């Protein structure tokens, strides 16, 4: 078939589908968002990231089951509770994934969001479709946030299934010593998952901002991971205690409050507030950069 094949009936069809600017507002955004989500989750690299995250609870659970030993206080938190109640595998896996695996997964996807499109050159075509830069930024944020949620969801779900399959599951003994029904334990588990997702949203936004600064996706990914690591390092230095409350990662492990009979809601809200602050600041920075920058890639 040639470029100029006269047998192809295109002209009349084109006339029927005359573009009508401004006709479809919100549904148009829904379509962009679906396309964005499909792009993120359809990418082999991102599927592998989720698979690796799913392996974390699987490996921990298998190791604990085979050794039939909850350990004697060594190892990550909740590890010795797993043999009593498989539900704790979820929490152990989250604690193990939070220092590196989860931030890495989030940084790879959010750091790639804009820089990846710029690097491929697809950004200039999206913008001349046209997609407004603000809309694209929001779609990219939502796509990256959806991936962060799925990353946490994968750890929680695989942890839960593995825990149920390998260990006894019943009434849940909370950290405060009280035991609650399994159903309540599950609800608290879902709450923990949500808290962890929220605590990653600040990093999602930072990744998106860094991504708007460069056309080299790897640089954006690495920078985002490094920011998370630096925050964790500073959080471990008592000398900079004054900074601690404002650090991105300071409240990441507060989710254990939900495993107490009376959680410190003030502490949890502070953690959420810090994330909202990071979202607001870096969201604004990303917007101001991305909506004004020359696209020369």
């Amino acid at each position, binding site marked *: *078939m040639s*470029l100029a094949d006269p047998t192809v009936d295109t002209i009349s*069809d084109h006339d029927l*589908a005359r573009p009508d600017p401004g006709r*479809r*507002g919100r549904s148009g955004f829904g379509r962009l968002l679906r396309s964005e989500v499909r792009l993120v989750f359809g990418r082999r690299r991102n599927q592998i990231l989720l698979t690796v995250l799913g392996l974390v609870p699987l490996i921990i659970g298998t190791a604990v089951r085979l050794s039939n030993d909850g350990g004697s206080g060594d190892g990550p938190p909740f590890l010795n509770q797993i043999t009593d109640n498989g539900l704790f595998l979820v929490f152990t896996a989250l604690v193990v994934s939070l220092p590196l695996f989860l931030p890495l997964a989030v940084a790879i996807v959010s750091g790639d969001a804009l820089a990846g499109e710029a690097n491929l050159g697809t950004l*200039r075509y999206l913008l001349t479709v046209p997609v407004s830069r603000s809309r694209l930024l929001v779609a990219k944020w939502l796509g990256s946030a959806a991936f962060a949620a799925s990353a946490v969801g994968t750890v929680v779900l695989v942890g839960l299934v593995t825990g149920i399959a390998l260990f006894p599951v019943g009434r849940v003994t909370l950290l405060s010593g009280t035991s609650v029904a399994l159903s309540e334990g599950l609800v608290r588990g879902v709450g923990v998952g949500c808290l962890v997702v929220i605590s990653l949203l600040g990093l999602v936004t930072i990744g998106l901002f860094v991504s708007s600064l460069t056309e080299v996706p790897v640089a954006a990914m690495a920078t985002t991971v490094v920011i998370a690591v630096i925050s964790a390092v500073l959080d471990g230095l008592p000398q900079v205690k004054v900074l601690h409350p404002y650090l991105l990662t300071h409240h990441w492990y507060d989710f254990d409050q939900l495993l107490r009979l009376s959680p410190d809601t003030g502490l949890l809200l502070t953690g959420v507030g810090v994330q909202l602050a990071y979202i607001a600041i870096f969201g604004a920075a990303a917007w101001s950069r991305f909506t004004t920058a020359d696209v020369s890639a």
Partner: protein
Amino acid sequence: MTNPVTIAQEGRSAGPPGAAPSAAAVPDPATTDSTDVADVAIASTALTKRFRGGQVAVDAVDLAVPPGAVYGFLGPNGSGKTTTIRMLLGLVAPTAGSATLLGRGMPAAGRTVLPRVGALIEGPAFHPYLSGRANLARLDAADRTADPRTARHRIDAALARVGLGNAAGKRYRQYSLGMKQRLGLAGALLQPRDLLVLDEPTNGLDPQGTREVRTLIRELASDGTTVFVSSHLLAEIDQICSHVGIMSRGRLVLQGPLAELRGEQDAVLTLQTSAVPPAVDILRGLGLTVTEAGGDVVRAAAETAGAPAVQDVAVALVAAGVPILGLALTRPTLEELFVALTGEGFDVAR
């Protein structure tokens, strides 16, 4: 040696008036902003881009592309064509000056104007791990004006139109350079367009593909679509353009209808003969200025005014017994035009 226009005009005793952009066709963006029907498809006023390093990539360019034209935007690599196109499309903010597309000011009116504009900018760019069809679906999904119910149909039609129907399901990374270029064109043809901006559309295509693109451009133009096509290959564009604009070192050194620009150039009479000295005498006798005589070739500037027609020259030569091995009247190619205007070769500018 800063202003090629000046050099070109000084270098030629009778400099063509067309060297200056035809000011009549340049509208004031402020007055045309609100009109829906544009009397120019693309216009720019003193459009300038100075990069952060201080380098002036585009220097006070006044484009005027009439609707329905096939406008060849020519210039060597690095002459500022792509930066100009990026400014027209709202990707790069101009340092100074303004531009309108289809009568609306850019980039402010991008939301309403760009859906009517198909673009190929500095080569195709797609996601390598998605198929050709999935890549077009992504572009279509991003278009708020596109009807999702007709998406499948429009995508298939665009793929068929560029001859990619059979490779639609293949991953983009497996495409050859020519196929990638075709997919880029398909992206520009997803919707009916009033204006196509095609930056180097034949890059990477084989001669057959190049011919096909030229045919496609002619077809689209005959439907009334204005086509703004850039190229660093002058000969390629020569054949399809109604208008040309020539860039050199960031400046638009020439712009206008191609026929007019050609007409302003002196035609050259080339005579091949075994008797050069008598031929020279006869040509001079006919009032022609002989520019070159040597070997078995005589060239003369065949001025449009007062010059004898070629057949009269032939008759005079034959009457004088000068053997004619060959006689031709040629107009300069775009490349020669460019060299004449800028005094430099059509090479990378900087």
